[in-house]
Structures are given as C-alpha cells and as structure tokens.
C-alpha cells in the first residue's frame, strides 16, 4: 500500500462544511424496554402456546358452564360412571354428574382462586415490601425480621391446620392461601425498591422536590413491574396448585362445588375401573400448570434486563 496511490480527483478533497455534529446519536434505532421484551416473548414458541392456552381455558371457565346442558350438581343416579359418549364427552361420575360440566365449573373455581389469591398476595406484598424498601431504616429492620420469622415457619402445615380450624369453603381458602402467600413477593419488591432507591435518577427526583407518592408511582413501581408481572404468572398456578393439594386431602371447597383438586381426588378412588374420571381433571390441571409455567418462564427471560443487548 506504500507508493502506488490511486489518482484521486481533487474535487473530492473539498472540505465538508458542516458543524461537528452528533448525528450518529439518532442513528441507533432505540427500542423501549417493553417493545424489546414483547419481541423476545413472541420468539419463544412455548410461551406463546402457553399464553394462548391460558386465554382459551379462561374463556372456557367463564362461558363454558353456561353453554352446558347440565349443571355441576345435577345427579342422574341411573347413569353413574358412564364412559365418555357424545352426550357426556368426559363421561359421568359416581353420582351420574356430567364430568365435562364439572371440569369446566372446576376451571372457574380453580382459576378464580388462582387470580384472587395471587392478586391479594400482590397487593399486600407490594405494599409491605415497598414500605420496607422505600422507607428503610428501623421500619425496614422490623418488617424484615418479621418476614424472616414467617419465612422459617413451615407454612403449609399451618395452612393445613388453619383449614382444619376454619373448615372447607372458598373464602377460607382465600384466607389460608393469602396468610403466607405474600411473603415471597414482598421480599422481591423490597429488594428491587432498595436497589432502585439508590439510583441517581431517584435521587434527582428527590432533589427537585418530588413527593414520596410521586417517586413511588412514577419511578419505583414501573421499574419493579417486571418482577411483579412474573410473580403473577407464577403466583396463579401456585395458588391453584396449593388449593388442589388442600382439596385433595379433604380441606378444599365443600361439595357439591368442585375444583380441579376435588375432581382429581374423587377420580383416584376409581382409577382402576373408571380411569377417565381422573384423566380429564388431571389433564386440565396439568395443561394449565404447563401453560402458566411456559408462559412465566418465557416472560421472565424476556423481561430479564441482563438478556438485553
């Protein structure tokens, strides 16, 4: 490359007349955090499939029982334990009740438990964790000591005991599941807020005189939204799971109301002769859990800022 320079037209040596600019600043196409997360979520096929199934099961839970010719409690004692037919696609149970209707109705119960419980947990957890993280100091020490104690108590045992004391029923399940359910999210929110609180822009907001409310609403909550959303997608199946477990050991909703847990529990006893009675409720629980887990995993990966490039 030393001496054989190509001839260059002198015109090209003309100096460019422009201000030293920063035009490259806008050259980089910037996507927002949420656009980015949504794009990554869409790439995850399992997560999308999970989301679609969650939507389907939610719609089925809402309108399914209306469309059915049967009610969840109608007994037809001359038609007990019928194998699946066109009339009863999921068969009938040992009291001659239509299993499809019961599974759909169970979806309603189970999904509503999942949503109500995880929503209540979320509210309590965000308030508690937010207060501890934002105000810090002695309050934080106290609240966290309390959480440490609650955390080390074997919660499921206390929940079981509580259900024994309160007796079966939907409201009692809400109470029992919320009692310890909020601790996890409270801890996460506190950790997140604690980290965010130290960031410069929050300091800056404080310096220009923004109030607590404004700082919490404008700066802290939006940034903690990622973990909150991920919590919801794992909290709902978690609550469904625990309710199913309680129903299974005889502490869930009271008959004739059925949740997926009670249906599975009923089905086990006739496993050898009428396996379809457990098959359909089991399928419903498993697919719903699977969907939430796939969706939750995808969402967590999509929202993880460390993945961002």
């Amino acid at each position, binding site marked *: *490359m*030393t001496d054989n*320079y190509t*001839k*260059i037209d*002198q*015109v*090209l*040596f*003309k*100096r*460019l007349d*422009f201000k*030293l*600019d*920063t*035009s*490259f*600043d806008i*050259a*980089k196409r910037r996507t927002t955090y949420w656009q980015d997360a949504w794009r990554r979520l869409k790439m995850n096929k399992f997560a999308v499939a999970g989301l679609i199934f969650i939507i389907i099961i939610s719609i089925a839970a809402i309108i399914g029982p209306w469309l059915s010719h049967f009610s969840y409690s109608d007994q037809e004692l001359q038609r007990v334990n019928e194998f699946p037919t066109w009339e009863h696609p999921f068969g009938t149970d040992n009291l001659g009740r239509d299993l499809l209707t019961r599974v759909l109705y169970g979806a309603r119960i189970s999904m509503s438990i999942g949503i109500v419980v995880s929503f209540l947990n979320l509210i309590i957890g965000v308030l508690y964790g937010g207060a501890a993280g934002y105000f810090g100091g002695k309050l934080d020490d106290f609240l966290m000591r309390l959480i440490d104690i609650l955390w080390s108590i074997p919660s499921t045992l206390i929940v079981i005991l509580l259900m024994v004391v309160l007796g079966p029923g939907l409201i009692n399940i809400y109470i029992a599941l919320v009692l310890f359910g909020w601790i996890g999210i409270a801890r996460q929110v506190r950790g997140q807020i604690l980290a965010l609180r130290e960031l410069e822009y929050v300091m800056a907001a404080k310096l220009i005189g923004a109030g607590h409310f404004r700082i919490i609403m404008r700066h802290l909550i939006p940034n903690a939204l990622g973990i909150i959303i991920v919590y919801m997608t794992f909290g709902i199946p978690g609550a469904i799971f625990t309710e199913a477990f309680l129903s299974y050991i005889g502490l869930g909703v009271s008959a004739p109301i059925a949740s997926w847990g009670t249906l599975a529990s009923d089905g086990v006893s006739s496993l050898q002769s009428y396996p379809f009675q457990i098959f359909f409720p089991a399928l419903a629980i498993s697919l719903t859990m699977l969907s939430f887990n796939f969706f939750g995993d995808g969402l967590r990966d999509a929202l993880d800022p460390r993945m961002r*490039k």
Partner: protein
Amino acid sequence: MKTVLQVKDLKIEFHTYAGVVQAVNNVSFDLKEGEVIGLVGESGCGKSVTSGSIMRLIPMPPGKYANGQILFENKDIVKMNEAELRNLRGNKIAMIFQDPMTCLNPVLTVGTQLMETYILHQGMTNQQAREKAVDMLRRVGIPAPEQRVQQYPHELSGGMRQRVMIAMALGCNPKILIADEPTTALDVTIQAQIMDLIKKLNSELNTAVILITHDLGVVAGMCDRVLVMYAGHIVESANVKDLYAHPQHPYTWSLLQSIPRMDQAKHKLQTIAGKPPDLLNPPSGCGFMPRCKFAMDLCNKKPPLFTVSDSHQAACWMLHPECPHDLKQLFAKEVAK
C-alpha cells in the same frame, strides 16, 4: 527482534438478532519479543474483542471469525483445536483482566488457583506447585505469601488480587501477556504500582505485553508502540514518541487533547463531541468523519492505512500525497498548538 505474534486482516463479527455487529475489521499488527504495545481507544471500539480473540475467548456464537489469521509460532490460532488451545492458554499466552474482584474464583483459595496452572502446564507435583505459588506471590510483591496462599480471594484487597492474577499469568513464563485494562478498577495509587510491576516483569522475563487501555497517560509510561483503534479499525499505529509528538490521525489528536494536563494552569479539558458509529450499520467511509474537524468529501470512502514512516501508519485521507497542502498545514498547526 523476533516477531512472536502476527495478526493479519482480522475481522470479527457478532451475529445478534438485530443484525451483524462488525466489532473488529481488518486489523493487522505484529508483536515482537519483549515488546510492549498499547491498544488504545474508547469503550466499544473493539480493543477487548481483539485481545480476547487472540486467546479465542470470544463466545462463539454469537461471535465469529469472519476473516484473517492470528499467527503464533507458525500456527494460526483461529484454526487451532481444543488441545492446542489449552496448551496455548495460560502457558504461552496469558491474560489478566479488568476487574480483579470478579476474576478470581470466590470458593477456591488463592493457592489452589495459582497451583492449578503450574500443575497443568509444567507438570509439577502438588508440593512443587505450592512452593512455586509462594515464590511467585513473593515476586509480585505480596507480603507473607505463605499465609496468603491459604486465603480466599475475598480476604485480599483489590490491588493484591490483581497481583495474584499477574502471578498466575506469569507463572509459566508466557511469550505474551495480554493485559485488558488491568488497572481500571483499582485506586490511582495502586494503578501505578501494578503498572510498575508489569513493566518490571516484562523486562525481567522478556514477555511481550499487549496492554489494552483507554488511558493514554498509562501508555506513555509503559509502551514501546501504540495502536489506536476506532470503530473496529486500527486508525493509527506508531512508536510512542512519534504518536505523542506527531499524531497523524485527527482521532488520535483528539484523544491526546482530552488527557487532563497538570502542567498548564488554565487548561480546559477537551472532549470529543459525538459518539462512535453504530457497528451494526457501519458507515461506508471513515468512521470518525462526523466528529472530525477536517472532514472532506473523500472521507465518505474508507481510507487505507498510509505509511508515514517505517514505524508509523495512519488511516486518514489527509495523508494522501494529493491532499491539498493547506489542509495538511491546518491540521499540523492545530497539532502544534
């Protein structure tokens, strides 16, 4: 002097969802025995990728060697197999990194981490390796090395840990030491000590050093030769003295301008306006053009490396023999100021 490492037309790409990032483009340089060269540039200019690629430490994928060779002892590192690479890494070419806080394994003692290199590459027994570890720690200036080998990294200060890293790197008498911003994470007073240590070991062991830094002040004290990188390209390569006295590329000149100076009472710190280009969509011409005071029409075309002298090259159209004299003089005048 013998050439120990030859990098030829190296081109490294990263394949991301958004497109191909051309992190390193057409980079060529030689490293001679016992020489210290500085690789200088802003963050993201490709200097760490270049140095990492010499050890094949770039994660692949997304990274990819798109072109070029890295010749070491007549072999192309790019084409080496796992076994050859393992024999190279830590043995013939060693590396120290930016943050000594995170570069040592927290659950293994300092001694274990030192010894494993010696056992692996020099076939030492446990006992020999332990003695060597103590000896090396003493050489890098760690007091009471007999106790230190039994400690865990978190029990050592940052400067100490970087000394441990150096002891680890130099234990097998490597031909080349790559130091990737070895002092960025350390206190200023410690920085000087670490640099002195590297310099001392360089002259004692005759190890060639590639020093990656964005601190031209450090380069002046340490290096024989400097490579200035910008947007994945080497834009200027020169001996330290020439580079400081007669920078030929406007970017180098701007970099020199932005060194804080203690010798002038009222000196306003210069910055370089603008940002380096996005390597996802690299400009077809000179990457520095939008930030360059001397930009011309021609700069829309990529400049080749022009030879200024035997040891001095720069990629700027102003070095073209047909470039108008007044522009060259304008630049020379600015530099002289």
